[in-house]
């Protein structure tokens, strides 16, 4: 088959129809039907308890650092599984490559340890 650009017109028509339907229903539901707004109505629903403060409070950066470190070493494990499966085929070449890879990560790990990331009390 030899498709011309104008053959894709139905896709755009369908896209336009889908968007028009969404916009039309949103306009219709917002203008039809009863609604009531007040300060308490528009508050966050907390099972009837009055909400206090803001949910978007700053969280200690340590959580983020630990999460990122976890991802890093998780990736390391992910690479080690296929290496273990193909250990024989990859032979010494693969072994040296893994050594370099894990060495780099180890240097990074020592660096973050030196930076005191795992010192929680600080």
């Amino acid at each position, binding site marked *: 088959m030899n498709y011309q650009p104008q053959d894709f017109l139905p896709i755009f028509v369908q896209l336009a129809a889908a968007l028009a339907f969404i916009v039309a229903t949103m306009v219709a539901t917002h203008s039809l*039907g*009863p*609604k*009531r707004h*007040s*300060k*308490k*109505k528009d*508050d966050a*629903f907390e*099972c*009837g*308890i*009055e909400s206090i403060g803001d949910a978007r409070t700053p969280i200690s950066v340590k959580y983020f650092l630990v999460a990122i470190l976890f991802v890093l070493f998780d990736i390391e494990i992910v690479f080690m599984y296929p290496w273990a499966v193909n250990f024989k085929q990859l032979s010494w070449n693969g072994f040296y490559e893994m050594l370099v890879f894990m060495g780099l990560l180890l240097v990074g790990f020592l660096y973050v340890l030196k930076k005191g990331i795992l010192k929680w009390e600080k």
Partner: protein
Amino acid sequence: MSDSSVNIVEAPAGVEGAGFFATSLDNLVGLARANSLWPLPFATSCCGIEFMSTMASHYDIGRFGAERLSFSARQADVLMVMGTISKKMAPVVKQVYLQMAEPRWVLSVGACACSGGIFDTYSVLQGIDRIIPVDVYVPGCPPRPEQILDGFMQIQELAKKESTRRRNEPEYKALLASYGIE
């Protein structure tokens, strides 16, 4: 579909002809609302236990289009208050009611929710109609599931007959204003 064992909701009164059926929008909206009421259970004591069996397979409130409990007030249509509401709990009930979207109905289940019941004491609210407008009262201590279902069917009748303008009418606004609700 006549030989089906599934009950089909009867069509509202309207003009019928070959291949068409016409009725008022009020009837249509009422029919849709009445058969898809989502309850928000507010169960604080033994009536809540009765509600559990009302929900379960034997009594099965799902037969009335209400199997989808809404634990967020935002999507709920019927607030079912079941059990003793202490004065400390009253602001919570009111807040949940306030945060429900219109149209909303309230079903007060059991003697405690209706009137304070046997707890005629300083710490218990003497009926939830002191803080929020109630549509249907179900008496009993606790009421049997059949009674809760009957109360729910009364709510369905209200939903079916309600004019789509009711929530914007001055009477309704005055009712809410008497409860201090904007």
